[in-house]
């Protein structure tokens, strides 16, 4: 037992150090302001990993979110996974992950950022595959790693283009250069960044890896696949926003991606039969919300929602972990009626669902409100998104918040109120241990505490509240009407078949081509040496046949040779 707490202590030490560093930065003015100095040379230097750490207020918030959730998850895991034979590697990878996350958020050196970015991806891969003896975990891990890594090539190229454009690989230096010499290559940089964040944050069309990552341990899902790593995509998009803010192409593309993803994720979440998978789709949808804010030209709203979502989604996943701990499954059908047996989990998760649905006064409401406000505000502005796009986006966002409220209510009802399934005795659902409840309470408190000081936008706030209330009401009404809320709409439950390119087409293509290549390599490319050897061997045998010791034949060879040489010589001359 005590050995487990070593890792908690390590995480706590890391968290403390990060907090000491980050907290004083929280109150500094400015949002990614241009500070510091970096000279722009003739061309970018060779890359280096100099620890150019610098925190902005927003970065400080994200760092605190990461280490906070990380610490809570580490504590939670002592109970949740403490008896797992591979607990040690699990706990160490979490710490490594946090280091990577701090590197991404805290640096101004793009290469350090990239290293942190990929280290996070690797940790995600390893942790999804923590239960590597199961096929789903292996498949999910491989898929997550491949999809995100391919998308990361976008970031790699984006960094190269930034370096070539501004002559430095320092974000601050590049910002200074762009303020002096003007922004350039914004469309290229923006699109490449978009590719990277679409992969990392599981946006359309690369969204499918995130739901498949759910075989990972639930605390990991809470930390990496809800609160921090996937949100790092949003952070990055916001961080590099100045480099592509003037490109309508990029912003429109981002808006389209966000619009499609948010509605699709919400609809998929609505029909899931598995709580964890439903929450995963909800994460996808919420991340799209944040991108919508960035596309609307207000990255600050996006990062605010990032923080709030990080808190309440971590809460939800950890709560989900408690439920799984109790009933041994994440299927909604196995739950139901857990309200009485698990009161602490019930109350904390209820707060989480409320925040997800956007109920006042949880932080979820305020930040969602800010996002909607940001989209509305950008409608009339010059530059950025076209007005039409903005309105479509706003409409989609409102529909999404309706669906979001609906599925949040549905999940809440089915998990805690529904009938107790047949196979499970009432006493089986027991409350989780204190080490697991504690983090839930902390996060629940944070869900309210973070609301303090949040802005409130009257017009859109009222609209949003009404829509959310409508969503909740529809579900509750249908529940009261006796519905089991098991909605199985075929194309939606099959997730529109969007997974197929990744699970069957791409692997089949790779297998087919590789088989061809292997065959060609053996039978095709290898022909010339083998043919050469064959010709040499045959010639050699032919030469042996000439050596008959038959003098007449020799004389003939000589005579013919002379004749050929003479004729050739005469022709040449």
């Amino acid at each position, binding site marked *: 037992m005590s050995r487990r707490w070593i890792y908690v202590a390590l995480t706590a030490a890391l968290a403390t150090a990060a907090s000491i560093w980050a907290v004083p930065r929280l109150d500094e003015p400015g949002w990614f302001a241009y500070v510091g100095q970096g000279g722009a040379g003739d061309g970018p*230097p*060779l*890359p*280096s*990993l100099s620890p150019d750490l610098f925190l902005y207020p927003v970065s400080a918030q994200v760092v605190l979110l990461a280490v906070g959730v990380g610490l809570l998850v580490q504590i939670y895991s002592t109970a949740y996974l403490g008896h797992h034979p591979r607990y040690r590697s699990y706990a160490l990878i979490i710490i490594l992950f946090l280091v990577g996350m701090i590197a991404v958020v805290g640096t101004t050196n793009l*290469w350090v950022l*990239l*290293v942190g*970015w*990929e*280290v996070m991806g*690797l940790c995600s891969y390893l942790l999804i*595959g923590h239960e*590597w*003896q199961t096929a789903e975990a*292996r498949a999910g*891990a*491989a898929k997550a*790693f*491949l999809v995100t*890594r*391919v998308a990361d*090539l976008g970031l*790699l*190229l984006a960094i*190269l*283009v930034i*370096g*070539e454009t501004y002559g430095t690989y320092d974000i601050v230096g590049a910002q200074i250069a762009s303020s002096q010499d003007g922004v350039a290559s914004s469309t290229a940089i923006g699109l490449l960044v978009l590719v990277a964040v679409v992969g990392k944050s599981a946006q359309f069309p690369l969204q499918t890896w995130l739901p498949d990552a759910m075989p990972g341990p639930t605390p990991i899902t809470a930390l990496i696949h809800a609160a921090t790593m996937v949100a790092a995509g949003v952070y990055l998009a916001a961080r590099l926003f100045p480099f592509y803010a003037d490109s309508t192409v990029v912003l429109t593309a981002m808006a389209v991606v966000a619009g499609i993803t948010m509605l699709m994720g919400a609809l998929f979440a609505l029909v899931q039969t598995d709580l964890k998978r439903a929450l995963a789709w909800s994460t996808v949808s919420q991340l799209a919300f944040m991108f919508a804010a960035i596309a609307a030209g207000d990255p600050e709203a996006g990062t605010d929602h990032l923080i709030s979502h990080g808190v309440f989604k971590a809460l939800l996943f950890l709560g989900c972990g408690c439920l799984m701990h109790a009933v041994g499954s994440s299927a909604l059908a196995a739950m139901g009626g857990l309200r009485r047996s698990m009161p602490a989990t019930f109350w904390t998760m209820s707060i989480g669902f409320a925040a997800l649905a956007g109920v006042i006064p949880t932080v979820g409401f305020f930040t969602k409100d800010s996002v909607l406000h940001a989209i509305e505000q950008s409608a009339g502005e010059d530059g950025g998104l076209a007005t039409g796009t903005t309105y479509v986006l706003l409409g989609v966002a409102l529909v999404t918040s309706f669906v979001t409220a609906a599925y949040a209510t549905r999940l809440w009802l089915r998990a805690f109120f529904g009938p107790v399934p047949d196979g499970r005795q009432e006493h089986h659902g027991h409350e989780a241990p204190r080490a697991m409840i504690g983090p839930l309470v902390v996060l629940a408190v944070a869900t309210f505490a973070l609301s303090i000081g949040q802005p409130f936008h009257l017009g859109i706030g009222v609209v949003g509240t009404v829509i959310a209330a409508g969503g909740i009401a529809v579900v509750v009404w249908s529940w009261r009407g006796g519905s089991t809320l098991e909605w199985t709409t075929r194309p939606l439950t099959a997730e529109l078949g969007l997974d197929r390119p990744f699970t069957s087409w791409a692997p089949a293509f*790779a*297998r087919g*081509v*590789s*088989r*061809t*290549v*292997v065959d060609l*390599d053996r039978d095709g*490319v*290898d022909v*010339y*040496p083998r043919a050469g050897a064959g010709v040499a061997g045959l010639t050699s045998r032919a030469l042996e046949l000439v050596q008959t010791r038959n003098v007449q034949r020799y004389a003939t060879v000589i005579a013919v040779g002379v004749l050929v040489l003479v004729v050739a010589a005469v022709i040449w001359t």
Partner: protein
Amino acid sequence: MIVTALAVPFVIGLLLMVGRARVSGPVAAAIGAAAMTVSLLLYALVWEGRDVVSGEVDTSWIEPLGARLHLGVTAVSWPFLLMTAFIGVLCCLWLVARDTAPALVGLVLVISASSLGVFSSLDLLLFFVFFELALIPMWFVIAWFGTGDGTRRAATRFLLFTVAGSALVLVGIVVIGLDGGLQVDETVTGSLAAAVLVCLGFAVKTPIVPLHTWLPDAHSTAPTVGSVLLAAVFLKLGTYGLILFAPLMDRFADVAPYLAIAGVVGIVWSGFACYGQDDLKRLVAYSSIGHMGFVVLAISTRSDVGLAAAVFGSVAHGLITGLLFFTAGSLKDRFGTASMAAIGRGLYGRTPWLAVTFVLAAVASLGLPGLAGFWGELLSLRAAYEIGDVLTKPVAWTALALALVGVALTTAYFVRAIRLVAQGEPVEQDADRDLDRREAVVLGALVVAVLVLGLWPAPILDLFEPFTVVAGVAR
């Protein structure tokens, strides 16, 4: 100093071969490791800075041909030298085992020493002599100490391919020698024939698709140290040759586009080939072709960034592929085969440390940032993006795109390999044994090296920045 650094492993290697009956295997290996360590230290100490030729030795040799015994260490060759000596030390340490033949240690020393000679030569003919010197010992390593069927055939294929390539290089050297002399720091040629011949010759050695078919057989049948030396050191003779010769040839520009495209086609080709492999050693062998493709792409830009990329990529590949082959060798020692199907799943559970090392090596090889493999690939991509002096934009950017596809493929096949070997429901086998101390030392040293170069690439990159004249080779 350089002469001593070369002579020590040579002489000790020859003595071990002659006196193979008088020493036991482990003792021979320990002596060999000591000799290579001496060499490594001497090469480390000889360094005088990147603007001069360090430890230069220049005496007359064959005056009528203008060939001189001209040795020295430059900013380009120094990383190669240190990597080679380091790998040599590890190969000897690896052989500190009961069943080692002392002759094998001797051969390893001679091979390492000749490779060091190649990297130290500043005279083209001397370069070529060292280049050829290592080949026949390598034949013996593969044919005598290799495992599986057809070791002789694989060894002979390796040798004949390589010699065919190097014969072309020899003709190229003759052309260069006639045009500008044989001294690397003076000569230059405007001959197209030289460029074609030299590039074609080194393309066999590097290897570049479609001249690579000797490689998988040789690598997979060779003993562990043989595979390591082949991949870590021998392929570098090819890339180093290209790096060394590229600035000497004005008409390199005419060859460069073909070189670049062939390199990236190799990346994609080898990626697909790896995806279909069952034998781990063959997989690693094919992956080497891909990594060499990045280096070739970098060289073909003939730019400063490309030079840094090529050097870094070569050195990193040496370390990482050494690690992969040592790991594959450990598996082969245990299970008698490197077939992933035969090794079985779930190594994480069966031999955790070995599995973790393998995963780390695989992740390093697929170019994860923060590990050594990344910087070389990244700089290659950057060199292609910046196009350089000799390529055109369509060629360079097509190459860039193909290289990116290759990166994705590399990830795919290594993830597949990890899935097949490391993960999965463990099925215990009798041969399951985790790393012993000897293996742990060798693998640990390489892991540390990969991590250090990954997190702190400055020691090598600083040799090339700021981009000014680097004495000797890089002009």
